[in-house]
């Protein structure tokens, strides 16, 4: 089986929206219904996970010298 590429949030969301549309519009067979639902649950979980898991990460200040980029912590004045 071909290895599935990790879907981006946008792709997963679009997929979920499409599935919901299918379920609402189409006369799906029971099997398609189950498949769609299973896929929808998977995508929905992925999206929710991404939303919840988005950890706070440090903001970065790029310092580029002689074509060498350094990452420093970005501090906002007054914060």
């Amino acid at each position: 089986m071909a290895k599935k590429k990790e879907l981006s949030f946008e792709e997963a969301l679009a997929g979920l929206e499409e599935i919901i549309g299918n379920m609402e519009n189409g006369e799906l067979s029971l099997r398609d219904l189950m498949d769609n639902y299973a896929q929808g649950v998977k995508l929905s979980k992925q999206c929710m996970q991404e939303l919840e898991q988005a950890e706070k990460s440090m903001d970065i200040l790029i310092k580029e010298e002689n074509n060498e980029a350094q990452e420093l912590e970005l501090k906002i004045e007054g914060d």
Partner: protein
Amino acid sequence: MAVHSVSDVTKYIKNMFDGEDVLQNIMIRGEISNFKRYTSGHCYFTLKDASASLKCVMFRSRAQTLRFVPENGLKVVAGGSLSVYERDGAYQLYTDSIVPEGAGELSIAFAQLKARLTDEGLFAVEHKKSLPKFPKKIGVITSLSGAVLRDIYHVAKRRNPAVQLILYPVQVQGTESAVQIAEGIRFFNKKYPVDVLIAGRGGGSMEDLWSFNEEVVVRAIYASKIPVVSAVGHETDFTLADFAADVRAATPSQAAEIIVPDAGELTRYMMGLTARLETNMHSAMHEKQNQLVLCLRSTAMHSPQRLFAEKRQRLDMAVERLTAFYRREVLDKRHVLELRLGRLETMSPLRVLRRGYSIVESDKGLVKSVHEIREGEWVHVRLADGSLQAVVKSVEEGGEG
């Protein structure tokens, strides 16, 4: 001396004008007077300075592109070509552009560069990329100091605390600025992938914002694979970077608002979608179940014997009728038949024989007349309890019969 027609001379003069390159693409500074816009959309006016005046015409197609309304007394730089209007024998400027002179050379440069890059397709709508729905990393190209970074930071973090900002600090004005901004855009594209870029600065004069009109910046934005949101100056400031960007934000704060979806809102949206998924599944299953139940409840599935009941009933009735018919018809007839048989019995020759009569048969059959038999023939005489073979001795006609 040769004599020429007015037309010939005028044509000659017109050709002189048209052959002069300098006059074909010229910028002329002056003050607008006698400005008139005809209902056709064409504009006619005079450019003048202290000591001279020049007739000008701007056709509708060009006049439509004006971002301001030319007024009498306005000092402008008009661009176009000089030629002769033969009917009036007057030379005039066929105007392509009018730039208010207050803004000076920059405005002209702006207009020229804009026209050139527009022709090249750098601002084409088809080229614009859509923004990611849920960006996690946002590259910011602006000054480290200044309100812009702060505004973007605060708005972005308020909407989604998890969003990460990566600042590529640049000078946002001055001679180095444009190259740095362009380099920043390339840096993110080549070395530091992010979901979306903001390039911007705060408000200022046209001079201050000028880096964002420079060709290197416009081209870098156009070439960027990462979507770029421009956020330059205030609502009313338009730079060429804005035209090239995938989305133009009126202010840096607005850029952050456009880019960063409200996490709470997004979560609610996702929960709504998930709920819809469940509801859809539930109702679809319910429907299928109903269909199944309906099937099961149908007579055929529920009590198949009922399907036959009617037929069986019909069969019963048929049998019943048949029986009745049998009784009525067959039995009755048998009765009649028996009666008749009884009668027949009474007429049976055997009964007659038992009473002493006999039956005479020859080899031709029953002998009922003396004419059917002759003397000497054999006859067969049947009696009640047997038969005789006899020879006829004589035949006599008559008798008691």
